[in-house]
């Protein structure tokens, strides 16, 4: 660059020899850059990174805690549910047993009652039958004696009563009927 050299009247530069003014400028400028970035920017970046790590780890920890709590609650609910089921089954069994007992009681009572009613009926029937038979027996005797008296023309009633003829006859009838 002849014209440059001519214009400035400057000796040629050696590129490997630093210019001291540039060293001063470079030192000051780079010093300022280092000061600002290393004091105000990068430490805050480290802080942000750390905060981010904390946030993520904290989030994971919180999630784990929540998961554990949820699991525990689930276990608890399951236990409670199982307990409730057993209780319900027991109650149902008890109720069934009670119902069965009551039914048996009622049945027994009913049977007893019916037996009693039947027995009373039978007794009454027998009594009535006996009465009727007795009445009939006297009636039949009287009728037969009356009839015979009319036929024979004399009173046989006293005779018959005296000798028990009618009774004997009836007894004979009964025994043949019973046989």
């Amino acid at each position: 660059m002849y014209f440059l050299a001519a214009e400035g009247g400057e000796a040629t530069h050696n590129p490997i020899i630093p210019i001291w003014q540039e060293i001063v400028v470079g030192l000051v400028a780079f010093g300022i850059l280092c000061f600002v970035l290393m004091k105000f920017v990068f430490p805050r970046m480290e802080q942000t990174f750390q905060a981010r790590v904390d946030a993520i780890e904290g989030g994971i920890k919180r999630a784990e805690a929540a998961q554990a709590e949820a699991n525990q609650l689930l276990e608890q609910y399951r236990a409670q549910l199982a307990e409730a089921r057993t209780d319900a089954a027991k109650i149902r069994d008890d109720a069934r047993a009670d119902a069965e007992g009551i039914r048996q009681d009622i049945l027994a009572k009913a049977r007893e009652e019916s037996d009693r009613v039947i027995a009373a009926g039978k007794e009454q029937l027998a009594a009535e039958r006996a009465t009727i038979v007795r009445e009939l027996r006297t009636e039949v005797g009287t009728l037969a004696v009356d009839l015979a008296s009319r036929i024979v023309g004399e009173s046989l009633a006293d005779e018959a009563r005296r000798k028990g003829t009618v009774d004997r006859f009836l007894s004979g009838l009964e025994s043949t009927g019973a046989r």
Partner: protein
Amino acid sequence: MFGQANVLAAGQAAFPPSVEDFYLPSILPWGAHDSYWFTKITAMVWIAVGVLIIFFLATYRNPQLVPTKKQWFAESIYGFVRNNIAVDMIGHRGVRFAPYFTTLFCFVLLTNMFAIIPFFQISPNSHIAFPAILAVISYLLFNWVGIRHHGFVKYFKNSLIPPAPWYILPLLIPIEFFSTFLVRPFSLAVRLFANMFAGHMLLLVFTLGGFAMLSANTWLAPVSVLSWTMTIALTFLEFLVICLQAYVFTVLTASYVQGALADEH
């Protein structure tokens, strides 16, 4: 800043480009060639510092647990350097170096990037002063960390005496000293500087070459177009180099710190 463009427009472009193309006239005072306080280069450094400070302060003014898009972007830059460089190289102890590494990475990346941003089109890192500052800081950093971690004597013992038979030590100790304490800052600085210097020089060669051929002979116009096409292709290559060098500078610094912290050789 637009001096080059004027020169190009006037068809006065000298070819081939020289080292002097890297030393533009100063902005304040305007056009001076012996004043370096306020040149395009220093202006770009200030712009880089300003852009980075504003970007990070704006995106991280009110950090949220669930990040916004901008916050996420700022965080992923820091996260990249923190996890993929600091923690990967140094282990969990690397986290405390991550802020510096990220600052370093962002600064180098952006100042490198000026090499291909229109109207800037030169990287401050093509002036060795800036890579040198960063390299010296890295040098002081790893030595300081090592001395603080091991104590002065043990640190130098660890660094200088490799586990080797005693008779070979007289040969190894000077080599270790040379490579660890002399070459490291120099190689760091020169690697970045030379890459950016060469990148800018390449782009200059192809851009100015196009103009030079055009002004020499109009029939060479197709070759000029080819030359400018090459400039575009090389710009993409530059992009790769820019990112790679920013990464390499940070990774090497991390690796030196790791070496200083390592318990045994």
